């Protein structure tokens, strides 16, 4: 993972060498000191949750919900099993940070989950890892074995009387399983179809027991917060946007990859860290928070800082921190066509507005892209998105609608040109050059 943070990065520090993921290496760089501290000093669960609240840590999976608050929803006096579940399903196009956390720093997730288990009175956890990263799933299982053999997982951890065990569960190709209740269904051995909420997982989660689900990066941030305190974490970012965050940069930059930076860092700095625009071309647009976040025109993006509030002000969402960089070689109709196809493919089919709506969105964008668009198609797109949003069980419906609305809003001229002229505003040979694939041939 490329690390060029302005401050000492937290999640990715000390990660050099092929064996950085191993327990031995993690211990050498101070790993498990947070868990040991919690257990040795018998820090109270309330105090831990208080620190996490103070840190301003917001969920790194996409919704940005305050983590400390979420943890406080877990029932205290519940008799019986409770669960903590890690969401490493990472299927949001553009996002690939959790893979690298698990690849290079799996023990930070294990430690974070164990502390979460302690704070919420859960003695069992699962990490749901998407099926496409099989090698990393295997590695995580090996890391779990290491932790178990060292007495850092299992019964009576380090003689403290606290029991916590953790297992890996793999997905097998379904984006929707990233939605937290679909993920629970999937662990239960069913189709990954989201549940109605309420009841929320804190009351009715895995196997009907109280459950808290957090993203991989969220859990990986916990040891740092426990070691250095909520205030220090908060101060590493900016108010209401605590900590550092890993951004996955893909698309038209010279050095795509993961970059850990303090929240509040200017977008232009991040772009520079990623080697700048490929071929020195112009930034046409940026999707700042994964494919489900509204697209932002390049010039607006250049004025943003990378944090929840600034990106929201620009009309989009920080989401999972997946920054998709789009340059002037791209036909925005074609780009939207591909995204719409994705949501159409991945809709679980439970709600009519999502199942039918994603299919219509794709068909209409597809016909516009292929020169068969009709005069009123843009209005039709707007009306369909309006009829999906807020009318579905889970947020995939909105996720399918938001890109359509924002693409049409910001790049309306390209859509109109397509409908009227039956071709792309961006010449085809320029588009072809954009990816750089064929230039490697000549």
């Amino acid at each position, binding site marked *: 993972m490329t690390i060029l943070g302005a401050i000492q990065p937290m999640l990715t520090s000390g990660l050099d060498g092929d064996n950085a993921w191993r327990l031995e290496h993690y211990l050498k760089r101070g790993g498990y000191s947070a868990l040991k501290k919690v257990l040795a000093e018998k820090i109270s669960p309330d105090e831990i949750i208080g620190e996490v609240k103070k840190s301003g840590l917001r969920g790194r999976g996409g919704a940005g919900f305050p983590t400390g608050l979420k943890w406080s929803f877990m029932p205290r006096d519940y008799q019986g*099993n409770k669960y903590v579940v890690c969401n490493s399903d*990472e*299927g*949001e*196009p*553009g*996002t*690939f940070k*959790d*893979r690298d956390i698990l690849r290079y720093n799996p023990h930070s997730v294990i430690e974070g989950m164990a502390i979460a288990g302690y704070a919420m009175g859960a003695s069992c956890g*699962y990490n749901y890892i*998407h*099926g*496409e*990263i*099989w*090698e990393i799933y295997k590695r995580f299982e090996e890391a779990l074995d290491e932790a178990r053999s060292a007495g850092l997982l299992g019964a009576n951890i380090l003689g403290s009387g606290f029991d916590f065990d953790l*297992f*890996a*569960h*793999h*997905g*097998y*190709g*379904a*984006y929707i399983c990233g939605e937290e209740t679909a993920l629970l269904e*999937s*662990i*239960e*051995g*069913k*189709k*990954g179809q989201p549940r109605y909420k309420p009841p929320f997982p804190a009351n009715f989660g895995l*196997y009907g027991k109280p459950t808290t689900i957090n993203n991989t990066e969220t859990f990986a941030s916990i040891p740092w917060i426990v070691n250095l305190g909520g205030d220090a974490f908060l101060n590493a970012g900016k108010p209401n946007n605590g900590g550092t965050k890993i951004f*996955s940069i*893909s*698309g*038209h930059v010279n050095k*795509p*990859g*993961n970059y850990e930076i303090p929240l509040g860092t200017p977008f232009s700095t991040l772009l520079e860290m990623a080697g700048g625009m490929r071929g020195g071309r112009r930034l046409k647009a940026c999707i700042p928070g994964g*494919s489900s976040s509204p697209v932002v025109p390049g010039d607006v993006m250049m004025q943003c800082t990378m944090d929840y509030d600034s990106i929201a002000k620009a009309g989009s969402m920080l989401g999972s921190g*997946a920054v*998709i*960089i*789009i340059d002037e070689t*791209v036909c925005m109709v074609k*780009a939207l066509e*591909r*995204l719409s196809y*994705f949501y159409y*493919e991945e809709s679980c089919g439970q709600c009519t507005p999502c199942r039918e709506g994603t299919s219509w969105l794709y068909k209409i964008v597809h016909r516009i892209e292929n020169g068969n668009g009709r005069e009123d198609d843009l209005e039709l797109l707007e009306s369909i998105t309006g009829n999906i949003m807020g009318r579905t069980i889970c947020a995939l419906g909105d996720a399918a609608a938001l890109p359509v609305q924002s693409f049409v809003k910001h790049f309306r001229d390209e859509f109109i040109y397509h409908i009227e002229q039956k071709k792309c505003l961006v010449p085809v040979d320029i588009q*072809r050059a*954009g*990816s*750089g*694939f*064929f230039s*490697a*041939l000549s």
Partner: protein
Amino acid sequence: MLTTESLQRIDREIEKYPADQKQSAVMAALAIAQEERGWLSNETIEFVANYLGMAPIAAYEVASFYSMYDLNPVGKYKLTVCTNLPCMLSGGVDAAEYLKAKLGIGFNETTVDGKFTLKEGECMGACGDAPVMLVSNRRMCSCMGPEQIDRLLAELE
């Protein structure tokens, strides 16, 4: 129906879950069965369901819901290429076109010699390494330009 080794692997998966929640192991069990048999026939799915004490239809629902299970025979190697937008920007679609031309097949087709099946994939959580492809669900290949694709095809015997 499955080898002892596969059954032992499935048993280890079952142990991860509460004793009354064996069904939780169905995803792993189907993946293990597919690894051994190449694809999931109705008989294989039924066998897995019975092994886990669940209704065959419930196992079939799982097998048909998740895209990495193959409910029809595939070639010796299944190549799944990600063509989603982030990869597309860096050659994912071009890589798929290149493979189609080289292998003389389209998506969801198998070469006549039964060696390769080509599939279109969605985001695999590796977009920084585009073009990205998966070999038979297990091995991820990154930064697959034309030269790297040529080398991969030559290496897969």
